[in-house]
């Protein structure tokens, strides 16, 4: 029908490859968007400063859920600093979407959550 709900995105929404919980993750972070009630919780496992495994659980709109799945894949192999330096333009580029102001917030929630988790993790002192 249109860009926003093209097949690829809906595929990530309906059959996410990275959904579920991890046992003993190094980073767990939940965040929500009170405006629309989107909620995501991310689980990250690290090895030698790099992300080795990522998964998420959540409830939300197509944009938020599909972005969570796509970014989960993207985060694997990245360092925490690399993730922290990711900007919204990069997320929007990956999605290839032209989003309106309110919908950008849906797309940004996953990255916002993970960045929060990283800050928390770093402030506790790196374990591994």
């Amino acid at each position, binding site marked *: *029908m*249109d860009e*926003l*709900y093209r097949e690829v995105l*809906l595929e990530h*929404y*309906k059959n996410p490859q990275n959904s579920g919980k991890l046992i003993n993750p190094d980073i767990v972070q939940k965040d929500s968007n*009170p*405006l*629309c*009630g*989107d909620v995501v919780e991310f689980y990250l496992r690290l090895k030698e400063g790099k992300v080795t495994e990522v998964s998420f659980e959540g409830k*939300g*709109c*197509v*944009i938020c859920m599909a972005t969570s799945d796509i970014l989960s894949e993207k985060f694997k192999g990245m360092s925490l600093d690399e993730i922290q330096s990711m900007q919204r333009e990069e997320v929007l580029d990956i999605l290839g979407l032209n989003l309106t102001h*309110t*919908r950008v917030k*849906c797309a940004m929630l996953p990255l916002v959550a993970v960045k929060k988790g990283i800050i928390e993790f770093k402030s506790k002192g790196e374990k591994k």
Partner: protein
Amino acid sequence: MKDFPIVQELHYLDNAATTQRPLQLVEAMKDYTLKFNANAHRGIYSIGEKSTEIVEDTRKKVANWINASPEEIVFTKGTTEAINIVARGLKKSKIYLTQLEHHANFVPWQQFHEVIIANYDENTDKVNFDFEKEFDVLATTYMSNVTGSILPVKELIRKAKEKRALALVDAAQVIGHKKIDVKDLGCDFLAFSAHKMYGPTGVGVLYIKKEVQELVKPLIYGGNMIKNVTLEKTELAQGIQRFEAGTMDIAGIAGFNAALDYLAQNIENFSLNEEKLTCYLLEKLDEQKIKYFGHKNSSGPVVSFVLDVHPHDVSTILDRYNVCIRAGHHCAQPLMQCLGVVATCRVSFAGYNTKEDVDKLIQGLKEARRVING
């Protein structure tokens, strides 16, 4: 509707957020701006006097419309400011609120007073008050901006008055659909916004009954609200003038004047049309097995519903059909908690809406289900 060019191309169903404006209002604002623009209550020259006249004439019209006297009408920038004037101007008290409140009639009280809440029961579509409880002020909405529920405000105020409490009514949602009589209601304060009754944004009204004006301290201080200022001290003006510091949105008030005329001419036809459209919508939602909230008792033309597609996705897909609805918590999070959802889709009607708007909506909802759920 020839008076509202914008709805010729648009199925605008977010009237609880703000209504569209008739050409008559645009003309009035244009006329004022091009011919009479001057500050009100100041200039002693003809266009200055004319500006003052427009403000005072509008004040009279508002007073007439709600059966108050002009000395009881304060212009604000909207319902939110109107309620803040009362919430911040009264001494700290115990406030009885309902779970249906818009944040505008919730947060100011919660910040500065002690609040108790009358819960909303979705099964009966009623608010459960307990008038055995002690309280100083009843602050209640007339009509919910989420479920459309209309509360028995007159009865509630009568009971509050038996306890010698003050009563404030948030009339933001009801004002564009139903004629209000403050004397009949018996309230002390009533708040509403022009932009929900075919008027402009930036203008609102606070009705304060004469007998209680002294109980409320002004919220904003400065020019126009004083009687005399010396280096040592300021003597405040009497009456409503104390609540109108600074320059007001006079062009907006000129537009509001025209909107009031417009509403007065059309309110009967409009509300009948809205009632029929609401019934039609509920039938269609039932047909589609879409769950909506409330509408078991007296209700206005506002319907919230949820389906198996996230409200944001629904709203985005409907936009492709030129259908505008609202998706979100509607500034009523305490109510969302009670409904057990974080967000709903909301349709709200105004006089210019048509059956075709509803048909397009339903077509869009089917499409949303098809696209997202496959």
